[in-house]
């Protein structure tokens, strides 16, 4: 086992343990498992995924159920993130960490509603999660 694998395994263990302890990063309507991006390889096989490539979110409009977790995976070297304007997921705005190539970021949507998001440095990149 090389050191990278060790790191990944440890991260996966942390993610699993963190699933029920979302309070630390909870907004009013969403929860993030960890603010740090994770390796794309750690995204569960059955996860709901939005890939980011060629300056676009590949599923610009995604419908999920309340309680679902959405993973965004950056497929290109241009860094991207997921951000919400003020009042969308809480009183303030929310800005996810920047993802490098093959990094992922997960957000759990706790309430029904429409959640429009964008990429902080590329405001022309927009998407929406519809939670039923």
């Amino acid at each position, binding site marked *: 086992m090389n050191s990278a694998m060790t790191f990944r395994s440890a991260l996966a263990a942390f993610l699993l343990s963190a699933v029920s302890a979302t309070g630390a990063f909870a907004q009013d309507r969403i929860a993030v498992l960890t603010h740090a991006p994770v390796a794309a390889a750690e995204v569960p096989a059955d996860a709901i995924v939005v890939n980011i490539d060629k300056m676009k979110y590949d599923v610009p409009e995604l419908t999920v159920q309340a309680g679902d977790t959405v993973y965004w995976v950056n497929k290109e070297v241009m860094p991207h993130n997921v*951000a919400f*304007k*003020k009042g969308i997921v809480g009183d303030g*705005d929310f800005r996810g960490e920047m993802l490098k190539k093959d990094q992922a970021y997960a957000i759990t949507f706790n309430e029904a509603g429409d959640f429009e998001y*964008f990429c*902080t440095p590329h*405001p*022309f990149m*927009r998407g929406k999660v519809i939670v039923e």
Partner: protein
Amino acid sequence: MAALPRESTPGYLRLLGAGLTCSVLALGAAQAQTGTEPAEDADAAAAAAADGQTHGQRAAAEAAAALAAGEADEPVILKAPAPDTRRVYVQDPAHFAAVTQQYVIDGASGRVLGMTDGGFLPHPLAAEDGSFFAQVSSVWSRIARGDREDYVEVFDSETLRPIADIAIPDDAQRFLVGTYQWMNALTPDNKTLLYYQFSPAPAVGVVDLEEQKFDRLLDVPDCYHIFPASPTVFYMNCRDGSLARVDFAGGETEVTNTEVFHTEEELLINHPAFSLRSGRLVWPTYTGKIFQMDLTEEGVNFRPPFEALTEAERADDWRPGGWQQTAYHRPSDRIYLLVDQRDEWRHKTASRFVVVMNAATGERIDMLELGHEIDSINVSQDAEPLLYGLSSGSRTLHIYDAASGQELRSVDQLGRGPQILMTHDMGA
């Protein structure tokens, strides 16, 4: 702008002026720098040029004569002469410094008439009729950190006193960027100021200058720059290669897109020229291909594009380059473009030449050699225009006869990195 109060010089400023016990000679020098009465100034400048005296020498002689004649030294706060087509504003973004300055210069005499202070990357604006000038600016409670405040400031053209200070709300903050001449604009009736917001989403802020208040933020598509065509219609340049027409009359925002007018490989520069009076937009690419559009409230007429540089010149590495690289002279329908021989990716370095073109035919009229490393150009909008060439590196404004390209005069010590040239188009 009748709604903006015009105050007279308050008493405390007069007292401050009177309290300064400067010598006659020093006062003379101060007058040379700021000017006294417009008519006298123009004559004086001509006389100074004729007898070979500098402004400073002439002021010294006048002061010595006044002293010899027993005239008393009575320090006062001066007014700038009334604005004319040859007044030019030089904005100094100062290489991203937290505070900045703008120089108000008489192009005819090459004298600094006054100055205004600004915050971080302020955007300067000038009413075409000369009735006022303004800026959109940003300051922080602790110089470069702490609470941010964006605001619009309107200045009286002669006293240079702020006659309006309009707060921009925190959730409508402006785009902080290297100053692009048309990222903000005044509507042709001078009643509204429009500024751009990049993040969190493309938007245009509407500031009501008549009521002196922030109006609202307009949602716009992924488009940049603002070119007003009427009091309630403006155009923007969009990522998809089209222009957007935005109509914000009656509290609504209606957006429509034109046809795509350029390809992804045709890179339009950040400094197009635009005439608010005629609606002409002149937009070069990195290679010097010139796109022109006539913007009206109703729509856009795209003119056939042409090349500013010949095939031979392009093969020999001639390309546009600098900061404010494009100027348009409305009365003569001429285009001026900064060019030089350069590598493709040195498009922001200074240039030493200006190509002059007939905007109607695309025909080259002249290629002027500037004799200096020039970053920005503009022209006065009078019948015999002055060509302004600004060097950020040497912080000097060079003033040329636009017809012959002959350098007439220059003004130096213009801050730390002056970049933007702005004039009043006062003609009918």
